[in-house]
């Protein structure tokens, strides 16, 4: 178990270091996120719809798009020079490879979200600070869910003919439960409702995370075995 996590950590550290040295994907994801947030401002009539009504949806659509950019490159990276073969030949177990990739993607998506959230609060004048604690919890849970599924889908999508196009087709239906719950919880938090009101959605989110993280660990092997 400890060995597994150590190997997973090494793989994640490799990916994060690669990204940290070049920063191309991270910077593009950030610019993309800022642009999406800015463009959404023109999608509403400010005299008719208050920013607070649209804010939760905008936040989560932005996060979803940003995550998609990060996930697409998770295995695209390994495709160059057939680096994945090297990884598979190493004594690292398949589970460790998967967990490492999930970890690296979580760091990537989490960093983008950490910068996008204040930007979102600024652009849409949403009081994020008073509900920061619960907000971070919801973002963490939803992000874990869709990064876990997204990493698995990405490992399949890179080997198809349409690679970048294939990931959204495969992944978006799977984002319905986590993103719907996250939007509903976020909306209630921003509206100042008590946290107890979101119990059902929170249970759905946690249940999704448990089932899909377990299923993805179980099935990842089948997507890369040769």
């Amino acid at each position, binding site marked *: 178990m400890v060995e597994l996590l150590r190997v997973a950590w090494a793989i994640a550290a490799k990916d994060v270091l690669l990204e940290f040295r070049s920063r191309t994907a991270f910077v593009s994801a950030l610019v993309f996120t800022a642009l999406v947030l800015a463009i959404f401002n023109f999608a509403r009539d400010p005299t008719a719809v208050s920013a607070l009504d649209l804010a939760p949806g905008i936040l989560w659509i932005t996060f979803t798009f940003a995550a998609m950019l990060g996930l697409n490159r998770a295995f695209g990276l390994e495709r160059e020079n057939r680096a994945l073969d090297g990884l598979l030949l190493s004594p690292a177990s398949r589970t460790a490879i998967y967990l490492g990739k999930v970890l690296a993607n979580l760091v990537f998506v989490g960093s983008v979200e950490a910068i996008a959230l204040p930007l979102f609060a600024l652009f849409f004048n949403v009081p994020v600070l008073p509900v920061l604690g619960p907000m971070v919890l919801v973002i963490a849970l939803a992000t874990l869910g869709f990064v876990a599924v997204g990493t698995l889908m990405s490992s399949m999508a890179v080997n198809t003919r349409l690679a970048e196009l294939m990931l959204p087709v495969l992944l978006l239906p799977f984002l319905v439960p986590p993103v719907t719950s996250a939007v509903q919880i976020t909306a209630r938090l921003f509206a100042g409702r008590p946290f107890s009101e979101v119990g059902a959605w929170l249970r*759905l989110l946690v249940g999704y995370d448990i089932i899909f993280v377990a299923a993805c660990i179980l099935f990842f092997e*089948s997507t890369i075995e040769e």
Partner: protein
Amino acid sequence: MTPIESAERALRRSAVWILVSLLLLAGVYVRALVFTPAEMVQGLAQKIFYIHAPSAWVAFLAFGIVGVTSIVYLLLKDPRADLFAASSAEVGMVFTTEVLITGPIWGKTIWGTWWTWDARLTLTLFLWFVMLAYLVLRSAVHEPGQRARYSAVLGILGALLVPFIHVSVYLFRTLHPLPVVLKPGRPTLPGSMLVTLVCAFLTFTLFFGALLWHRYALARLTDARAHADAERADA
């Protein structure tokens, strides 16, 4: 018997069953239109029920079969399980599309709108998207072993996803109640309508089975031919 011959025989036999179920389907329709009383409030519009509801049942059945055969494939690595799952997804896709076409036609007349984000409707739409993703994924992978593994994983995850979407759309609806007039209640069906409905369900299930068998035979035939060609090229 060579694999090609056996597949060809299955193809012919299933074609007969498709014809039989089409005749039965016509029979069900005669019964539904002529011998079943019109519904009091909805009138003739309700007749689409006898296509809509059985198609929905078959759509979910097909999806269930994809999930189960995908598990079988991952456990046994038997290419026949993969072909069967693919056939079920393809035939299921047709029936799911049928649900999504007949639904709005009925909805426009009775609910007054082509589309509404009703829980069951939304669930069917996402079922359709997952099936579509499954078929698109299959078409985008060439190597048969890899295609089978990928689609099996997607098939199982899709089957796991459906209950979650079901819960999300119901939670979504109960928190934002729709006007109740949009949704006709579930009346306890009077006897003659119930008999027609049961006949329709059975006929649709038979029709689905025949189409699935036919599609599977076709897949086997394609496979057997490809093998024979490869062997001839080797020789």
